[in-house]
């Protein structure tokens, strides 16, 4: 049984200029121990669909789905309190801006222990021991001393490690990483990706990697979903996506990678499609 199952998810936003459909009929599923990458450019709805799963969208958003189930439970029919018990404990999420995701007013230790207190009901001593253990697991040197540091005293890479520590604090079954390395330097990105892959393997978590970077997809994913303008273009396992891309959009995306440049000019999306209507058509 898949861990997360989404069927025909639609998310609409109420804006000053009328309703805007950010996600349009996306279906996907993730199993335990699986790494699913959702790839897309900005405006593809890749983050919005996962925020909808987490129930983190603002009230102007309208979420509709034929099925939105986690671990066999229907998320849409749960009340707020029940949903909150799942979100943050069994499903955890990390974001793009590690500095902005941590509260600058509290120490790192406090923020890790807060999660443990709310979801795991641990006492003070056990919380502290677990926090040290977590920081060690995410590769932060001198974890016991680091607990009393504030976010601004750490680098971006270290903050992202702390975010990961908070995310895995309750041993989640599913971890959603929303562009976890986009704000980081390449060498740090490598470290964070390695860390995520190691933790995923160790804990047997399902991992959803939201990214726009084809290189990150190639280095992490088992299976890939390609999205464009809120629609799913293609779903394939990682090797066949890169070897024999089925949808024309994926082909165009791969050709636009500078790594694959053969001539003097890069092929662009417009060499494959002359307008959006045809991309949308190709999606069907």
């Amino acid at each position: 049984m898949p861990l997360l199952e989404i069927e025909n998810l639609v998310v609409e936003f109420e804006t000053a200029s009328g309703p805007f459909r950010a996600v349009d009929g996306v279906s996907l599923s993730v199993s335990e121990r699986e790494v699913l990458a959702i790839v897309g450019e900005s405006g593809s709805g890749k983050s919005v669909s996962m925020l909808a799963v987490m129930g983190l969208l603002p009230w102007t958003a309208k979420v509709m789905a034929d099925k939105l189930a986690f671990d066999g439970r229907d998320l849409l029919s749960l009340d707020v309190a029940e949903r909150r018990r799942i979100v943050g404990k069994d499903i955890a999420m990390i974001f793009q801006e590690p500095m902005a995701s941590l509260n600058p007013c509290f120490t790192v230790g406090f923020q890790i222990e807060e999660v443990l207190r709310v979801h795991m009901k641990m006492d003070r001593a056990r919380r502290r021991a677990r926090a040290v253990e977590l920081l060690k697991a995410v590769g932060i040197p001198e974890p016991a001393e680091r607990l009393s540091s504030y976010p601004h005293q750490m680098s971006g890479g270290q903050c992202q490690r702390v975010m990961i520590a908070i995310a895995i604090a309750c041993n989640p079954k599913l971890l959603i990483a929303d562009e976890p390395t986009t704000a980081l330097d390449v060498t740090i990105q490598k470290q964070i990706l390695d860390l995520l892959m190691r933790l995923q393997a160790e804990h047997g978590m399902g991992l959803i990697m939201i990214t726009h970077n084809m290189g990150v997809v190639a280095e992490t994913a088992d299976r890939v979903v390609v999205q464009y303008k809120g629609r799913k273009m293609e779903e394939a396992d990682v090797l066949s996506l890169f070897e024999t891309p089925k949808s024309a959009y994926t082909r165009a995306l791969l050709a636009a990678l500078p790594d694959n440049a053969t001539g003097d000019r890069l092929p662009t999306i417009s060499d494959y499609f002359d307008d959006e209507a045809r991309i949308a058509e190709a999606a069907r």
Partner: protein
Amino acid sequence: MSGPVLEAKNIVRDYHVRGGMFGTSRTVHAVKGVSFSVDEGRTLAIVGESGCGKSTLARIITMIDAPTSGELKIDGARVDIGKAALTPEMRRKVQIVFQNPYGSLNPRQKIGDVLGEPLLINTDKSAGERRDLSMRMLKKVGLEEKHFNRYPHMFSGGQRQRIAIARALMLNPRLLVLDEPVSALDLSVQAQVLNLLADLQDEFKLTYVFISHDLSVVRYIADEVMVMYFGEAVEYGTRDAVFSDPKHDYTRTLFAATPRADVASIKARLAKKKAA
């Protein structure tokens, strides 16, 4: 004109950080004696991670900030903005395109005014002439006449970057400093903008200093590559030399860390995962 368009010798830039009311002041060495030169029509890529001094160097080359010491020559003429005010002729020789297409255009300025402003300040062309020149440049970067009277917020990131490039070219510069011009853009748009830059370089014989952290883009666009690490140039050579035979440890680390999106490396990874 003979000789390189841009020549820099031993550029040093220090920042003094005051240590508050009772603390002692510190000196931060952002750039530690960097030398390079670029010939006409060529592209020098400056590669490095955040805090390596590449953006500081970009501001020095663009003559926004003065170097603490060192010699900067543009078209063979020595520039020192610390001593003498910049002449308009020197000013227009070097222009810059920034990373963030959302921050680099004035939100209250129509596109036509964005493009016309450099001409208004630096030349005594009439309003009609300015309009014609702006319109021609707008079309050159792939936008249309109807975009002339719109505001920046009505454009997508890629379109804004085209406008920023057009603005930089209005004064017919010799040298264009591109500070991460495509790193905020989507992949497909990135390809379009890189193509545009290549076309413009051919047409106007432009010289580029291309600052980036993305090695795959650098490999595609650069003729020469300089790798910076904590304010020092640890590697400097032609693209092929740097990419095929990196000398410095840091360059090798950088190459190893860059994710690879080719079938062979995916196969290798999957095989390794199966074995584990």
